[in-house]
């Protein structure tokens, strides 16, 4: 994929260093970051989230014309660490009360994540798509979500070698299903590409990065941060658990909305597949993966809830922002002019 258009001084410096093959001045950039107040909202910070997303992408597919070795460039890694520490602090602050409330609500991980889902009850994009979204609004959602779904499940795969025993076996089982269960034509990322094409959209990897808002980048970045740090393996799997627990029913609503809009059946089929797959994955992720992980490594219990709460809080921000833009008659994407049709 191509390098994106910058959204501020930090992302500009990262993009320039990668495009030109030059060193990034990480010290100067960290100084820039330090000018942000301590309680700064990192989730809506386009510059920070884009810089972080680009740095993470070096660990996935990389960028056209950028040396693959930049993945382990010490200057870029130092900058990444500075961005991550701000992002993680923000996420921990946002979810602290949730984690305490969930811990108090029940003893088992499954019930605790259920308590989180009940507690963090943000607006539902799925319900909006089911009943009211326009064709154009739905396409915006597909474009923004393509960033994740074209590498669906990849962030969690980084966690596989970091856990052991029954939790690892269950995670491998879940990922095997996500990756098509031995059939290339059932790879979930491939099914999403088919759905994009069914909508008349570009299914090439990262095609809509420049249009993707900060909060959606943050959703992606949280998964990458959790996956790429062994320290955060509990959060990675807690995130997976909450994601799967809140997927099956919303996917049914999406499928209904897609059929209401008269889009091709291949688009609805992606969501049909997830109604069924995620009804399974919810049980596997929470009972077999998170439950066994916590039994084997009790010290990770709190981080499992942190990851789960992060998933739900970021989804809440993303849904609130997206619906806010749509209800005001604006596009929810970056740099798209007001359109009268909406």
């Amino acid at each position, binding site marked *: 994929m191509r390098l994106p258009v910058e959204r501020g001084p930090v992302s500009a410096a990262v993009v320039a260093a990668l495009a030109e093959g030059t060193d990034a001045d990480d010290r100067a950039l960290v100084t820039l970051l330090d000018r942000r107040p301590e309680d700064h909202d990192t989730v809506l910070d386009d510059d920070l989230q884009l810089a972080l997303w680009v740095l993470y992408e070096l660990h996935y597919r990389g960028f056209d014309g950028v040396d693959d070795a930049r993945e382990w460039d010490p200057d870029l890694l130092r900058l990444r660490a500075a961005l991550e520490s701000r992002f993680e602090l923000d996420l921990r602050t946002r979810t602290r009360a949730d984690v305490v409330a969930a811990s108090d609500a029940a003893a088992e991980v499954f019930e605790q994540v259920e308590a989180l889902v009940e507690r963090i009850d943000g607006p539902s994009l799925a319900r909006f798509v089911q009943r009211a979204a326009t064709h154009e609004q739905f396409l915006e959602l597909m474009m923004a979500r393509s960033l994740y779904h074209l590498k669906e499940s990849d962030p969690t795969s980084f966690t596989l070698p970091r856990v*052991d*025993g*029954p939790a*690892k*076996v269950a995670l491998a*089982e879940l990922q*095997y*299903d996500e990756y098509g*269960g031995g059939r290339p034509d*059932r790879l979930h990322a491939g099914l999403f590409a088919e759905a994009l094409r069914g909508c008349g959209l570009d299914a090439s990897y990262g095609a809509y990065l420049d249009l993707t808002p900060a909060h959606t980048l943050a959703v992606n970045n949280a998964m990458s941060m959790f996956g790429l740090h062994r320290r955060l393996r509990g959060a990675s799997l807690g995130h997976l658990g909450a994601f799967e627990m809140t997927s*099956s*029913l919303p996917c*049914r609503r999406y499928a209904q909305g897609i059929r209401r809009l008269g889009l091709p059946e291949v688009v609805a089929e992606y969501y*049909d597949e997830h*109604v*069924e*797959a*995620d*009804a*399974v994955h*919810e*049980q*596997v992720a929470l*009972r077999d993966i998170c439950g066994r992980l916590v039994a084997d490594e009790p010290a990770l219990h709190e981080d499992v809830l942190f990851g789960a709460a992060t998933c739900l809080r970021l989804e809440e921000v993303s849904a609130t922002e997206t619906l806010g833009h749509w209800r005001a008659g604006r596009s929810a994407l970056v740099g798209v002019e007001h359109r009268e049709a909406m």
Partner: protein
Amino acid sequence: MSAGPLEGVEPAAEGAVEVTVCPRGPMLLRGATSVQDGEGRAHPVTRPVVAVCVCGKTQREPWCDGTHKVLRTP
């Protein structure tokens, strides 16, 4: 070699179907090749583990579709 991480886990017999009942949720099947619905139609199993509806309210019989979560618990 020391005992591995799977110590204490019973290996499933070759070809056996393993059934896991999830409290207030579906029934998970591992190792099944086909599941018959209430009308005798066979549904092939195409994933490593499948969730069979237990609440009877699914719209994708015989598979769980998460509907049990929106049912009122007595």
